[in-house]
């Protein structure tokens, strides 16, 4: 029988350059942090990230240079943890295109 169970390092290899990736959770809550840590190591290019209120997990991918375009309503860590540094640097340097929606 086909098993869909994979190790994290196998699972992240399903993601290829230029694909669009939806990342769940909001800000620092329920985000797939371990998956994004592992994916960041692959140094994929031109990924398009999608989330309602992306935070830590998506920011790791922004900081690793994997993301070229990001769709969001709010992108940050909330309150005392502030703004997302990877996203900010990428957008401010013109390396990441921001598609802000509501």
């Amino acid at each position, binding site marked *: 029988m086909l098993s869909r169970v994979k190790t994290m390092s196998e699972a992240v290899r399903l993601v290829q350059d230029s694909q669009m990736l939806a990342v769940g959770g909001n800000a620092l809550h329920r985000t797939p942090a371990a998956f994004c840590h592992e994916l960041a190591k692959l140094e994929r290019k031109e990924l398009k990230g999608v989330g309602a209120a992306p935070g830590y997990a998506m920011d790791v991918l922004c900081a690793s240079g994997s993301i070229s375009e990001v769709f969001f309503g709010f992108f940050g860590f909330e309150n005392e943890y502030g703004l997302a540094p990877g996203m900010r640097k990428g957008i401010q340097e013109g390396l990441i295109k*921001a598609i*802000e929606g509501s």
Partner: protein
Amino acid sequence: MKYGPAEMMVIALAREIIKSDLVFHGLASPVPMTAMKLAKALGTDFTYINITGGVDPDWHKPAVVGSTLSQNLYEGGVANFGLEEIFDLACNGRVDISMLSLVQISPRGEINMSFVGGDYDKPKVRLPGGAGSATLIPVTKKSLIWKTKHDLKSFVSDVAFCTAKANPNNQFRVITNLCIFSLKDNRLEVESIHPYSSLEEVKSNTGWEITQENLPYTDAPSELELALIEEVDPNRIRYIEF
């Protein structure tokens, strides 16, 4: 009992909630969260919805962290009502109050949450974005915009970018650490000044001209309101925003 801007803002927001209202706030909202709990503790019979999907969470349990995505806003609730359903409800005109914030605001009720300096594609400072503001403000019966730091950086004659805009046909109030504004004839007018502030202080921290005179003070917090804030927020999570 002593009080400051945090208590005054929580109380001003809570006083806006009346019987049978359906009221929403999102993430990064410790002051609105405390206001919702205070209104519950005061006995106002309303429905509290929030970004976690919890409906009327148990307000007796105090929050221990500043995030308003935490289990404290879900546990003990009467139903699960997801964010996408909240947006549908709002677009059907059935949300009475949304509590939202700002980075910059103009006298016409234009709110910027997107960036300052440079342009959209290469901003000097990229901000987090308006979240649900652009959808919710036009369709909510009463938008309550809160800002804990009323200053010339935030209260500007023109915003760098308009992320969301007040709907002149609906109610729109801005509650700050100094005063309360209300949108009248498409312009923000001071409705009342908090007892510890003054018209001079409001004027010198607002980037557009205020020509109003002889303005009333906001009713000072009652002993009951102050006592109940301590009861619903003993860990003083509300101060995270100040």
